[in-house]
């Protein structure tokens, strides 16, 4: 459906996006994950037509969008700080896109009331948007983007300004709406929890390119890159040096794994608890035991989060004492 082909963009003379290619299929929700300043929002702005790629193309159903101005693209865009029109009430905000398309008044009324119900804001029609809470404003913004039945929906960190419980509620609502309407969506965030909740596919943006493009469970299993593991908060990352074909040396000892690097090179390893507390993980290569010195223990609901020397964090059922040396089963993976 939507395709980005080798898109290049620089910001104030510095390369921002060096080579971006991906596709979004009909009915699919993809999540664009990246650190702040990595160019996620710029990608959305280019898809919306508010900004232009320096090279490469953006295609919709194989048609190049380069000549199509934003108001003819039929896309929806939801911002973190809502971007609601302060001079219009809730009804007129939601109706804006329909009015621009010269939809008859009766139809607009009907459509807006359906949408208000969908985002749980029935009866809010004539309220001033400036009097609404953050969560309510974001619902209006969502309804406004949905109103003209866009061909593609884009979310630019839509929940970034909301508190935790509100975030979860609204995230589930968005998920439900996307499932029901089957509108393809691109969801930009730097929050891994949001990404795992909403995405059919996660794309990780790092240093100007997309380094990982896979389903959430696959990425969790094989982050492949240190940047991906860091961004998604998967396991622990430690420095290591390759000392032979099948051996790497770390401050926690030497492990038998095969990294595709030359001898003497520095690499980073992913250390995951094994078996992980939730039962994830498969026995196999890279299995090892390491000794950790406990630095701090935190109570977390049904388990304890243990921080050990060297910056490693693991979870345990029983709380160890500080300064205890514990032996832990882990799985070690090479990262690139």
């Amino acid at each position: 459906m939507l395709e980005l082909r080798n898109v290049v963009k620089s910001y104030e003379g510095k390369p921002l996006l060096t080579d971006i290619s991906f596709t979004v299929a009909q009915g699919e929700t993809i999540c664009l994950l990246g650190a702040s300043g990595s160019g996620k929002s710029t990608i959305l702005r280019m898809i919306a037509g508010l900004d232009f790629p320096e090279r490469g193309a953006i295609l919709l159903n194989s048609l190049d969008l380069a000549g199509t101005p934003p108001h003819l693209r039929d896309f929806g865009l939801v911002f973190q700080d809502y971007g609601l029109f302060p001079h219009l009430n809730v009804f007129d905000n939601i109706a804006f896109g329909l009015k621009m398309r010269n939809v008859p008044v009766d139809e607009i009324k009907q459509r807006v009331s359906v949408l208000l119900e969908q985002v749980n804001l029935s009866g809010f029609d004539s309220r001033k948007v400036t009097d609404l809470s953050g969560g309510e404003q974001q619902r209006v913004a969502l309804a406004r983007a949905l109103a003209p039945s866009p061909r593609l929906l884009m979310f630019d960190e839509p929940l970034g300004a909301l508190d935790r419980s509100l975030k979860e509620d609204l995230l589930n609502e968005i998920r439900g709406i996307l499932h029901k309407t089957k509108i393809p969506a691109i969801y930009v965030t730097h929050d891994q929890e949001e990404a795992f909740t909403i995405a059919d596919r996660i794309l990780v943006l790092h240093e100007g390119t997309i380094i990982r493009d896979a389903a959430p469970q696959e990425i969790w299993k094989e982050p492949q890159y240190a940047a991906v593991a860091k961004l998604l908060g998967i396991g622990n990352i430690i420095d290591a040096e390759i000392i032979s074909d099948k051996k790497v040396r770390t401050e926690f000892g030497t492990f038998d794994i095969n990294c595709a690097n030359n001898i003497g090179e520095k690499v980073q390893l992913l250390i995951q608890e094994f078996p992980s507390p939730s039962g994830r993980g498969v026995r196999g290569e890279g299995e090892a035991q390491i000794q950790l010195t406990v630095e701090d223990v935190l109570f977390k609901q049904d388990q304890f989060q243990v921080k050990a020397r060297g910056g490693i964090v693991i979870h345990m059922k029983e709380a160890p004492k500080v300064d205890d040396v514990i032996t832990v089963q882990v799985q070690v993976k090479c990262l690139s």
Partner: protein
Amino acid sequence: MNLSPALSTKTRSYLSANSRILFWIPTLLFLFSFFFFPLFKILALTFNFETLADFDNLLVARDSLLFTFYQAALSTLLTFALGLPAAILFAKFNFPGKSLLRALTAVPFMLPTVVVAAAFNSLLGERGLFATTFDLLLSTFDLQPSTFNFILILIAHTFYNTSIVIRIVGNAISRLDPKLESSARVLGADTFHVWKDVILPILRPSLLAAALLVFMFDFTSFGVILLLGGSQFATLEVEIYIRALQLPNLNLAALLSVIQLIFTLVFSILYSRTINQVSTQTAPRFSASRPPKTLRERLFVFTGYWILLTFFLLPLLSLPIRSFTRLEADRGQRTEVQYGFTTDYYEELFINRRGSLFYVPPVQAALNSLGFAGITVILSLALGYPAAYALAKPTRLEKFLDPFLMLPLGASAVMMGLGFILSFGRLIASPFFIPIAHTLIALPFVIRTLQPALASIPERLRQAASTLGASPLRVWQAVDFPILSRATLSAATFAFTVSLGEFGATLLITRPEYPTIPIAISRFLSQPGGLNYGQAMAMATVLMLLTTLSILLIEKLRFNNAGEL
């Protein structure tokens, strides 16, 4: 332990009702005798049978009202034609020299009307630096000199008020969330609809507020119109002046000032309503200003920069240049004229010539002005301080009295002069009425400058000082004085500047023996001969320098946003 410091702080902070009234007495007494009593006289003269039954009076009133509206509307349009692009330029773009250019556009707003009139006269007037261009323009476009003068008035109004548009509308533009435009575009709005349905509706209160304020200033403009156009341009203000002094008909003058007052009050009320809407929309500022990127943007910034720089700098430069340049014969002699650089006009200021315009050397006008300004400073501080003190912690009494204190702002200077003539008759031959009139005009500004400074002194600071053993006098010295000294100096400079440049009221009540600088300039301008014109230029240059120095001082002393009305 001595309890008196604690007690005295208490009385300072919670003035009893009685002592509050005592605070108000001098200010109220002053306002009643010199503002409300004259106002009452004007009203009494207006609403009497003789005035309203005279059909000619009503005709003149109608004509001057229509002409006032006409010129104010044209001036406002022209001001927006320059001000809107300028507001966009300052709100959206960064460029070298931006803050300097911005400051330059704000200078005219504080300049006395006589200086602005003299500056435009020196540049485009028929005796100005570009006199030949002036002749050429007249002949090419087949313009009457009066039409040209009218255009000059409109340009001078634009020069005065553009900074209002830049400030009010520019602020609103820089507060516009750029996401709103993005949202609108993505939702299907093309450029036309983005402006019509999003940007303009959001900017509307600030556009309206700026338009109302500019219109009000143009509506009440007096000095610029009289000095650049002469009495043929009979706006309400000019007509009041003519009917008060030249073709005496005090009934008509009173009627005209009441009409003027009513319209000014209506505009002020509308303005304060719209400006309230503007301030409710003070969303966080979006630092949207950036260097121009595309060719179109760069072209816009480049041309905007040079147009603004030329427009605001040229008159200010041409005035001093013309004051040092001889372009015509000193007294209309037929002998050959030495064109070029001269300091004669300045030297002549110190000479008391027989047959000159005054009984005194022109420099006496400067001394008079300084004297009047000094008295104005003392008087307005003496009256402003108690009022500001009481207003700093307002009770119901203060909230009730506050609008009355600000009412003189709504009355024009010419109207005040008329009120003095009606109320005090021959008494106004005494030169003391001039600083009294100036104090009336300066007082609202002085109070508004002192009040926030007084309100800002935390009571706890005073309490802390007194519990540490400071006597009330020491408390005042240690706490109040350092905070107040800046505001006081700022208020004093303000009163000084207002008095130095005041033209309208002074023109109506002055006597030939006591000319002030603006009066002298206007008389010199209206006389033939190169020497008179040159002296007008020289005096206007001196006044411009004095005022500019005062503005710089006030800017340096500005206590937060004190003094904004």
